[in-house]
């Protein structure tokens, strides 16, 4: 039994969170957020893994081969798709911030500013 994949997921999550907290550029912030999100891919795939299990695609392996869990893989796919679109939406907001306020430093963006 090993916990290494989960430990790596925790590490990626915390590194990404550090990037979000200390970010001084909106694009950097959005990328940090996707680093945080990529830890969830690792966590999901790590949970569904079965030792020596094949991928759950039964094209050239016998139907009763030991295979890893397909549900978490499908969840990861959803995760990636949603992550990509959220990143695109946030980057669009960063473009608008630059246009409207002339800055992409989160510290210089004031919510009460015109």
């Amino acid at each position, binding site marked *: *039994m*090993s*916990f*290494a*994949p*989960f*430990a790596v997921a*925790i590490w990626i*999550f*915390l590194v990404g*969170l*550090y990037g979000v*907290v*200390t970010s*001084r550029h909106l694009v950097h912030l959005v990328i940090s957020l996707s680093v945080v999100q990529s830890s969830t891919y690792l966590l999901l795939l*790590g*949970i*569904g*893994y*079965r*030792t*020596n*299990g094949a*991928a*759950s*695609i*039964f*094209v050239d392996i016998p*139907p*009763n081969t030991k*295979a*890893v*869990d*397909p*549900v*978490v*893989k*499908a969840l990861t*796919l*959803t995760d990636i*798709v*949603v992550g*990509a*679109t*959220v990143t*695109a*939406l946030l*980057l*669009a*907001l960063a*473009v*608008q911030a630059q*246009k*409207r*306020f*002339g800055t992409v430093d989160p*510290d*210089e963006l*004031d919510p009460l500013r*015109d």
Partner: protein
Amino acid sequence: MSAGGGASQRRDSEISFATRRRLFLVSGVVLAALMVWALGGMPGFGDYHGIYGLLLNRVAVPEEHATNVITAVNFDYRGFDTLGEEFILFASVLGLALILRERRDEEEGPPDDDATGRQVSGASAAVRLITVALVGPTVVLAVYIIAHGAITPGGGFQGGVIAATALLLVYLGGEYLALRRLRPLPLVEITKATGAAAFVLIGVGGLIFGAAFLENFLPKGTAGDVFSAGTMQPLSVAVGLEITGGFVLILSEFLDQTLVLRRRRGARSR
């Protein structure tokens, strides 16, 4: 939150960068400790016993004639979730197009102006040749990935993104402005909307010809054939259309921002 306010260089009400980092390091260590503690309660790596996934691995091939169980989960067993996922994508692309719409103080610069400004970063003949030559194979690969979604790794999501990268290749080759004059944007939007609508309509088909929404009502063929797994392949194509349309729209909105939209002369700076 005025703990470190005195050190702020920008505004009195803000905490300084250093304070913020110190605050995170303390809370981050606490968070890390809690997570490591939680590791103790996790099932060991490689020791998963979720019965649902194991069951699907056994029944997907005999029941649905789909050899790719992940696609079977996405487009059949949990098809309704994928419908939601598809509309998350639809809504966010819509939001993106709305956020990046042309503002009042902006206007589209004439392409000739942009062409002169772009000479600095113009693509070399070799890059141009390679990218244009790669567009065809990229689209073929995308169609292959979409068409074999229920058989081998792939499906509408993956294939759609690959198809949309063809646009990026064109941009890399420096031909984006030329393409933009030809690009049928309404067609891209229609493609995206057709994909979204087709998914719902195939689902309604399950309601009419089967018993439930998104039920697999088409003939299932032989497992491993392109025309197998019933509604999964049409659904994969529908998702492929929507993802292609959606990502082409996302990419071209961003490319338009860099290449085409110019601030109107004499407009206010903000």
